[in-house]
């Protein structure tokens, strides 16, 4: 299994290289640069800044310099947050996004699997439709509508929870819920689909025929195989969610990684954008690996070659 993991990690290197190159040349191709503001710089000052950040070098050399830095674990200084390095910014933002995204995913997993299982057991009955309809509100209302609604109700009007910012657990409730709602819908749907299939399988019929109670059949026999597609969804979805959501971060004022993708691109903060892109790429690889390992645990037929 260790060999399998190692092989996968090594196999990911070309993937990452392609990713880095693509992102690097794309962002450099964007019109405008990090030092453009509506107050134009005298040409000498601009040239001086360009030189200080190696932006006057030919593109291939800049790429080389960037890769060189990367090998030494140096993501470079940020253009937008000039007092910080990209490494520092990611190190500060990731724990926040991780906590937020992790909690949201956990919530979504628990609720989504529960809803999906119930719906599957009552396939096409009223309960099925009601449960799925409720879950689907999460993907029918965009989160930039849902999040302000939650704030208006629970923070501004009822004053139960804070409207934003970092602090104690209370600050996390609304963003976690807003982040989890769409995920609940996806997970519920996946669970329902695969659970329906599993329930028709022979080994479940056998278990039922043996007179095992419904609850035991579901928990002991059906759940594990039914979760397989959910698990493979969870890998990339978790990687995406713990690298932050720009909408949620903007609306709740949470200092996560998500805004670095968008704001970094808009500010032409080349190094920061590259940093989060590389980070995201690595996370995807890691999470896909984890998914494969979990798969093996859930489904003994899978062999690691």
């Amino acid at each position: 299994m260790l060999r399998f993991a190692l092989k996968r990690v090594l196999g990911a290197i070309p993937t990452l290289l392609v990713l880095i190159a693509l992102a690097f040349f794309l962002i450099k191709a964007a019109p405008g640069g990090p030092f453009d503001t509506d107050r134009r710089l005298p040409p000498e000052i601009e040239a001086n800044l360009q030189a200080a950040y190696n932006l006057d070098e030919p593109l291939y050399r800049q790429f080389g310099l960037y890769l060189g830095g990367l090998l030494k674990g140096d993501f470079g200084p940020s253009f937008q947050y000039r007092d910080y390095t990209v490494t520092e910014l990611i190190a500060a933002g990731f724990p926040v996004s991780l906590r937020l995204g992790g909690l949201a995913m956990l919530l979504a997993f628990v609720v989504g699997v529960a809803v999906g299982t119930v719906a599957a057991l009552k396939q096409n009955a009223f309960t099925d439709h009601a449960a799925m309809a409720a879950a689907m509100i999460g993907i029918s209302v965009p989160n930039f509508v849902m999040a302000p609604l939650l704030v208006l109700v629970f923070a501004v009007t009822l004053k139960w929870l804070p409207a934003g910012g970092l602090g104690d657990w209370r600050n996390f409730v609304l963003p976690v819920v807003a982040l989890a709602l769409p995920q609940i819908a996806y997970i519920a749907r996946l669970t329902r689909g695969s659970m329906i299939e599993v329930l028709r399988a022979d080994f479940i019929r056998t278990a039922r025929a043996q007179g095992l109670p419904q609850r035991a059949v579901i928990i002991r026999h059906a759940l594990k195989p039914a979760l397989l597609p959910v698990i493979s969804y969870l890998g990339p979805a978790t990687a995406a969610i713990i690298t932050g959501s720009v909408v949620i971060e903007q609306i709740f004022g949470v200092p996560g990684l998500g805004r670095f993708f968008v704001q970094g691109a808009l500010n032409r903060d080349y190094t920061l954008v590259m940093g989060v892109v590389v980070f995201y790429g690595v996370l995807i690889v890691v999470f896909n690996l984890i998914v494969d390992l979990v798969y093996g645990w859930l489904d003994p037929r899978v062999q690691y070659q």
Partner: protein
Amino acid sequence: MPARVTNRLRLVFVAAAAMLSGGCGAPDSGQTMRNTPVGGASGTELAAEQILTKNNGAEPQTLDPHRAEGVPASNILRDLFEGLVSEAPDGRLIPGAAEAWQISDDGTVYTFTLRVDGRWSNGDPVTAADFEYGFRRSVDPATLSQYSSILFPIVNAEQIVKGELPPDQLGVTALDDRTLEIRLIGPTPYFLGLLTHSTTYAVHPLSVEEFGARFVRAGHLVGNGAYILDEWVVQSHIRLLRNQNYWDDEHTVIDEVNYLPIENQDAMLRRYRADELDFTQDLPFKQIAWIREHIADQLYISPYLGSYYYSLNLTLPPFAGMPKLRRALALAIDREVLTEKITGSGEIPAYSWTPRVTGYTQQPPAWAGWTQAERNTEAQRLYKVSGYSADNPLTLQFLYNTSENHKRIALAIASMWKQVLGVETKLLNQEWKVFLETRKQKTMPGVARNGWIGDYNDAYTFTQLLASDNEQNDSGFANDEYDALLDAASAEPDMQKRAALMEAAERLMLEAQPIIPIYFYVSKHLIKPWVGGFEANIMDHHYTKNFYILKH
């Protein structure tokens, strides 16, 4: 009184005593332009917890005063550092780190006397040498300042910034521990105002040398302002605590101030309403009606030193050589409707370029006094004269950058042009940096959104923008007479003559209509009723040391 008063030098400004008049008892030394309602005659009672939370609009790019630019950084730096000159709550200039200064008769040599009790936050005295160090660092190309060009009035500053001279050639000299001399290349009436800008702040030389670029981090930063940096979490908050070593700390009331970088204005308003903010920067246009209805008493709107305008590309058709067409478009905009119904937060309709600044008479054209119906008639006449009609309408490209507010104004104006003249407008919304590039290149014909916030409270910051060699001149307006008037103005030591020259220049420029002024900016704040000490001023500069929290 400083000893160095000679007959060549004339005392222009002696401390604050004269300005204080209405104040609060006899000021002992120079400055005490203070909030004094503290437990004073007004009988207000202060809250036990003196914590102020402000929205700052965005994350500052840096807190290095010499590299900083933009409003978010300046707001915080005003609390962390103190320039030679400071500002009273109403915006008047008052002594800061310098307690007095003298200006030579020809207006080119400034001699500052630093206050005796000036201290860095680590207890070291603030010396003239620290300021000399600061000025030199500001213009040193190695510092990578983006704003050093505003120091160009100082002798040799431009050459140093451009790398032609070493920084020690700068016309700033510490004559002794408490005396700093600054030599200028010409009379610069707005120079004192510049000294409130962060590029002129002193930095603590030892900590800059010890920590390098990281000297601005919490724990490293040594300042001479009323507050010290306690914590900085990027995109979350910046927390400052009062500086016990500040010379006027006894008058400081707020113990802790938090700056939040909330950019999304709707989110900002919700957090204000949830009592998580005491003070906001700017407001969403769209919520202004709601605010007026529910919390009108917390809304503070006042004139701001800025013009919102459209640049017409004079280098390409349809505007090249077509002043009448340009005038027609300027006339056809109903600015009353626009500022009342579209922006709706007290913006002032603008028919001329320079906002209301000190010592300058605004230059609205004659048609500013007409009714909109009269303007429309004239606009239609000029439109026809320019060769356009209902059968042959003008087709315009209209460039603006991604923003809800700019979009609304652009749509409204495009529809006014359509209704009055029949102009077909093609809107083009570009993301900020692409927009800047397009506008700068002047390759796109038509109209581009623009705005200018003055660097200092003097008309020159506006007039110079349309000089033919100004990088900011996005219309491509080039007029020798205009340039000559500007040159004459900057060499003129007499303030009234200087103003007259700039006023003549503006009239000349408006006649050609290379730009269409839309409105003068206003500053907009929501302030909780328990926050005291706020006073509006045209620069919208506010110092936390003047604020206090009432019991609530």
